[in-house]
């Protein structure tokens, strides 16, 4: 039917499909759609850089222009992963450069980015336009200088929360006079000084500049000059905001700010004199995003007064010194609020005006559009969570962190099972959940039962037994990332359904009860997983006894086998057993299944058979028992032994992995 349309028409239609998941689905429809989608794909998202190789990426998507890569596991943010674990971007850049890919955008998260990589990017990709680095490390201002100097059409340089060695601050001066294309410049995370004159000139010659986030070395008078030159800014991050409200400098600033009628996003205040906040009030009415989470200097009624001016706020990031009363002000002012993040200002929670369940309840009552929450608090009650669940059934992300992670409900002394249970039952669209507080297996029963859309779950210091983990693995069909620390989950839970892990991006377990033997078993049964053991203690202490508990295990699906760049502290299991593992050939399995080859394409084969009956629990394998998509090596073996009523089987050579938005493969698809 679709053969009526020439390729160009289909390609044009596909252009409107921008979401990764949807494009992956499109590629599965038939051979010609697969081909057209493949050549027209410009943006690729790879959630785990070790799940696929750059060579295979390019083989499938030769026209790729924009690449997103993520490296270290999430818990690396909390110092649970050795600094040299991996996630190096250089090999990717090298291959992309060698194969002549016209890379234009690169977005990296938790990767190690060397100056060499940045230099190679800047010198190879002539049309390079956008570099976004989030939580990366490994580079210095020298690498930034190369990007500034050589990327003639640079539009975006966005550095978020990176650890940068910027002892030499000349990088900003390296933007040539001819560079006038900047749309977004964010260097708020840099510690060093920048050449202020160069910065002013750069901003002056960038008429398209919409987003500018400064670091704390940029003083007030420079800020004022920059605002005068760029009144068209939409997003502003203020570095230093220290001035005397009665001074001339302050007046000039007020005037400059008032000219910036387009600012909708405000952040920074890395250094702040809070009595000067009134200068900001004129733009507060337009703000949709406000991030004061790095400005502990703004608190008390200065903070609440500021927020009272921000009636259109949709996203608010603040510190817990706002207190429950301050959250009450948010609730009564910010009726459009969708996302709230409240960070701790004191890691030990010793502050007196940190927030409690009261603040959260107030916000839930006042802000019905709330759908995303990250909330660090002193305590939480079941009653509050039940109320929040009733007030805000639209949560997509719900991350609660009680500073004492095993604290029960302080009113009833009960675990928080019922409260979180109410959240998952009410919020049918919940995709991400982080738990804390005293929790038993019961909460996991609720999660497995109700959290049907859940994709990412973070658990710490919870549960009583393996049952907890099993409820989740069996119940959450869309689970992609599971990260667990300090829970009593052992081998029984880990090994119950190892096939499940192939449908997920990754599993992290640290300080649990799994043993080396258990991890080895997973590695042996599932050659498509890399099972990594991270052992940072003295090597001689860690004996090779299978009964030894594993401190940290990280496993993830991959199509390219064991990585070669792991440091000494990381062991990848299965190296020895891999060569002994007999992988049945496709032909062997086809013989067993008595399938007939109906159409004999190289790439696209359909078999039919009437001889098979579906048995066993295959909800993990698909929504339609008669049509299967799977990895030929692992999946077919399983299908052959169980699916006795299989009528139609399609094996694609290239398709999308798992739930649809992670990895591109060339061998098959595992779909739930």
């Amino acid at each position, binding site marked *: 039917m679709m053969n009526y349309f020439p390729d160009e028409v289909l390609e044009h239609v596909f252009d409107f499909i921008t979401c990764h998941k949807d494009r992956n689905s499109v590629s599965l429809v038939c051979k010609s759609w697969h081909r057209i989608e493949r050549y027209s794909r410009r943006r690729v998202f790879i959630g785990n850089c070790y799940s696929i190789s750059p060579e295979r990426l390019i083989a499938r998507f030769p026209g790729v222009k924009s690449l997103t890569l993520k490296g270290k596991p999430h*818990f690396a*943010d*909390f*110092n*649970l992963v050795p600094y040299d674990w991996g996630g190096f971007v250089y090999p990717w850049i090298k291959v992309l450069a060698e194969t002549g890919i016209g890379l234009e955008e690169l977005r990296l998260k938790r990767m190690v980015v060397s100056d060499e990589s940045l230099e190679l990017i800047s010198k190879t990709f002539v049309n390079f336009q956008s570099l976004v680095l989030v*939580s990366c490390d490994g580079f210095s201002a020298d690498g930034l200088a190369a990007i500034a100097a050589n990327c003639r059409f640079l539009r975006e340089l966005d550095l978020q*929360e*990176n*650890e940068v060695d910027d002892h030499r601050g000349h990088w900003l001066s390296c933007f040539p006079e001819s560079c006038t294309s900047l749309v977004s410049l964010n260097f708020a*995370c840099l510690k060093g000084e920048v050449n202020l004159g160069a910065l002013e000139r750069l901003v002056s010659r960038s008429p398209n500049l919409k987003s500018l986030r400064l670091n704390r070395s940029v*003083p007030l*008078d420079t800020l004022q000059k920059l605002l005068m030159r760029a009144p068209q800014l939409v997003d502003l991050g203020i570095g230093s905001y220290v001035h*005397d409200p009665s001074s*001339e400098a302050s007046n000039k600033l007020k005037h400059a700010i008032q000219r910036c009628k387009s600012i909708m996003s405000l952040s920074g205040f*890395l*250094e702040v004199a809070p009595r000067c906040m009134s200068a900001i009030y004129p733009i507060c009415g337009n703000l949709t995003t406000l991030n004061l*989470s*790095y400005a*502990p*200097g703004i*608190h008390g009624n200065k903070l609440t007064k500021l927020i009272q001016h921000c009636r259109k706020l949709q996203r608010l990031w603040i*510190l817990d*010194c706002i207190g429950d009363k301050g959250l009450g002000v948010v609730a009564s002012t910010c009726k459009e609020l969708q996302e709230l993040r409240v*960070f*701790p*200002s*004191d*890691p*030990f*929670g*010793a*502050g007196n005006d940190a927030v409690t369940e009261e603040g959260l309840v107030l916000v839930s009552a006042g802000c019905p559009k709330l759908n995303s929450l990250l909330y*660090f608090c002193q305590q939480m009650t079941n009653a509050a969570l039940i109320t929040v669940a009733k007030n805000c059934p639209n949560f997509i992300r719900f991350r609660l*962190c009680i*500073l*004492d*992670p*095993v604290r029960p409900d302080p009113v009833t002394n*009960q*675990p928080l*099972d019922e409260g979180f249970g109410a959240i998952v039952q009410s919020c049918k669209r919940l995709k991400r959940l*982080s738990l804390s507080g*005293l929790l*038993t*297996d*019961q909460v996991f029963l609720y999660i497995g039962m109700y959290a049907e859309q859940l994709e990412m779950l*973070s658990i*710490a*210091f919870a*549960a*009583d*037994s393996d049952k907890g983990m099993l409820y989740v693995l069996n119940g959450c069909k869309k689970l992609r990332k599971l990260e667990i*620390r*300090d*829970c*009593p989950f052992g081998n029984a839970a880990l090994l119950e359904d190892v096939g499940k892990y192939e449908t997920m991006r990754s599993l992290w377990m640290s*300080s649990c*009860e799994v043993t080396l033997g258990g991890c080895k078993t997973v590695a042996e049964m599932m050659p498509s997983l890399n099972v990594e053991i991270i052992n940072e203690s003295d090597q001689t202490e860690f004996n090779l006894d299978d009964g030894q508990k594993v401190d940290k295990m990280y496993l993830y699906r991959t199509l390219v086998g064991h990585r070669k760049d792991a440091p000494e502290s990381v062991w990848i299991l299965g190296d020895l057993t891999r060569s002994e593992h007999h992988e049945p050939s496709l032909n062997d399995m086809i013989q067993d299944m008595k399938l007939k080859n109906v159409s004999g394409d190289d790439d696209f084969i359909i078999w039919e058979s009437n001889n098979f009956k579906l048995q066993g629990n295959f909800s993990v394998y698909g929504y339609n028992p008669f049509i299967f998509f799977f990895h030929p090596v692992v999946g077919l073996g399983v299908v052959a032994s169980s699916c006795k009523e299989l009528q139609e089987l399609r094996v694609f050579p290239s398709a999308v992995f798992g739930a649809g938005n992670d990895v591109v493969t060339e061998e098959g698809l595992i779909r739930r």
Partner: protein
Amino acid sequence: MEKEGLGFEITELRLGLPGGGEIKNEKKRVFSEISEEEENGKGNGKSQVVGWPPVCSYRRKNSFGDKDGSKTSKFYVKVSMDGAPFLRKIDLALHKGYSDLATALEKLFGEVLKDADSCEFVPIYEDKDGDWMLAGDVPWEMFIESCKRLRIMKRSDVKGFGVLQPREAVKGTLKE
């Protein structure tokens, strides 16, 4: 625990839902156990567990403890300048050295500097002992520890002040 088998289980205190028959898994690592371990190992006064609370390391380094200035080192001192109507305050901890400080002072008092009839200024400071000292002699770190207040004095007023010896080498003038 030793009373198992004697029917005392029912009196055993444990965490869990009422009526549940589950025996608390003894292997569950309770937060307080871990934090005791860490405390003993690291000798910290507070309970600290690696990676808890789950705040990313960048944020930990850049936003904690600043609220009232008592948790991070802040060295606010008053700065007076001859000819300026108001005193200012400056955080010495924000500056890396004397020249950095000089630049900052120039910014603070730029107007006064411009207006003053081209004379030179001398930065002096009052130390912990109450003595007025010429800035620039001691290493920067020592200076910020001992400096209580700063004064930017006109050189012409120096003789009358009784601090400096006429033959003493003058260091750290603003207009260097």
